[in-house]
C-alpha cells in the first residue's frame, strides 16, 4: 500500500489523518513537536526553531507562527481541531533541542531554551507529554505514524528510538 509521507521543513508544520507518516529531518537545536489524537487518528508535527515569538518583536516582514514554540503549538491544535481532532484527547511527543557545537555546551544554548518553552506551552494547553527524546549532542530525524501515534527517532550512527 502506498504510504503517504509528508515532510515538515524547518519552521513549518503539517497535519495528517488516518494513514501515513509525518517526517521532519534535521532537528539540531530545533524541537519537533508531535501532537496526536488517538480517537480520530489525526496527527500534527511542528519543527520549531525558536522558543518565544514575543521576544522578537523586531521589524519582521512577515510572521511565521510555525517558527516559535509559543505560536506553533496553538496553531497545530487549531488545524487538528478543524480536521476533527478532540483537543482534550491530544497527546504530545517531543524530540530535539540538542547541542551540536562545543560552544553550545558551555552555557544555555537555544536547544535547551526551545525544550523548556515547548514543555511550558504544552503544559499551559494541558497536553500531556507521552514521550520525549531531548537534549544530548546529536541531530535527530522524527517520524510520526498517524495510524498508531508511534514516533520514531533516528540519529546518525545511533540506534532507533521509539516514543
Amino acid at each position: 500500500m502506498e504510504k503517504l509521507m509528508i515532510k515538515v521543513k524547518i519552521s513549518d508544520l503539517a497535519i495528517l489523518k488516518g494513514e501515513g507518516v509525518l517526517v521532519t529531518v534535521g532537528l539540531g537545536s530545533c524541537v519537533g513537536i508531535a501532537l496526536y489524537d488517538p480517537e480520530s487518528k489525526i496527527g500534527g508535527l511542528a519543527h520549531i526553531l525558536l522558543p518565544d515569538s514575543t521576544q522578537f518583536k523586531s521589524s519582521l516582514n512577515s510572521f511565521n507562527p510555525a517558527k516559535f514554540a509559543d505560536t506553533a503549538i496553538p496553531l497545530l491544535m487549531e488545524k487538528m481541531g478543524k480536521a476533527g481532532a478532540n483537543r482534550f484527547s491530544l497527546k504530545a511527543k517531543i524530540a530535539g533541542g540538542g547541542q551540536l557545537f562545543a560552544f553550545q555546551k558551555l552555557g544555555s544554548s537555544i536547544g535547551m531554551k526551545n525544550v523548556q518553552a515547548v514543555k511550558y506551552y504544552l503544559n499551559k494547553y494541558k497536553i500531556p507529554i507521552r514521550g520525549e527524546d531531548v537534549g544530548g549532542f546529536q541531530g535527530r530525524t522524527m517520524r510520526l505514524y498517524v495510524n498508531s501515534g508511534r514516533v520514531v527517532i533516528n540519529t546518525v550512527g545511533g540506534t532507533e528510538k521509539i516514543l
Partner: protein
Amino acid sequence: MVKQQIDERKLDILKELANIGFGNAVTSLSQMLHEEKISMDVPSAELVYLQDVPELLGGAELPVAGVYIESHGGADLTILFVLSLDSSTNLILTLVPGLAGLNDQMGISVLIEVGNIMTNSYLNALSFMTGLLLIPSPPEIAVDMSGAIISTVIAEKCVLEDEVVLIKTTLKSMQKSIEGHILILPDNRALNTIFTLLGIR
C-alpha cells in the same frame, strides 16, 4: 509564500565579492594541500526560503562535517564550511597521513584548522575590498546530519526572516576526491553596510 524581490544588481555584487573571497579561500586550501588543483563553482548569491536552506547540500539527512564561524565587527556574517564524511577523511589524510579520519581528535583538529584558514582567507579578501574589519570567532565543528547542523546554526543566530540571502559555492579536488561547500549567511545590516560602502542603494 511569495518571495520578496531583491535587486539583481545587488546579488551580482555579492557574487563578485564572493568570487574573489572564495577564490582566496580556494588558493589557501590548494596551498595547504601541497598545491593540489582545486576547482570552484561560480558562486551563487540568492534570496532563498529559510526552510529550504537545510536541504541545499544534498539532503538534510546526509551526514557531514560542518565548521562554523561567526564574523563580527564591520559586518555580521555566518560562515559554514561543509564536507561529506568521505571528503573529510580524504582531506584529513592528505594533510596528516595515517590518522583515523574523523575518529581521531587530531583529524577533527585538521578540519577545524582548514575551515579556519579558508574562512579567514575569504574574510581577508572581503575586508580588503570593503575596508571593513571582520573579526572571526574561533571555529566550531559538528559532525552530524547536514540539516541538523544548518538548522542549529540558524537557531543560534536567531534568524527571524523567512527569506535570507545565501551565498554559496562548491569546491572540488579531483585527485583527492574532496568536495566541499561554503555557505555564507550575511545578516541584513551586514548587507546594507556592504552595499552602502560600495555605493549601491
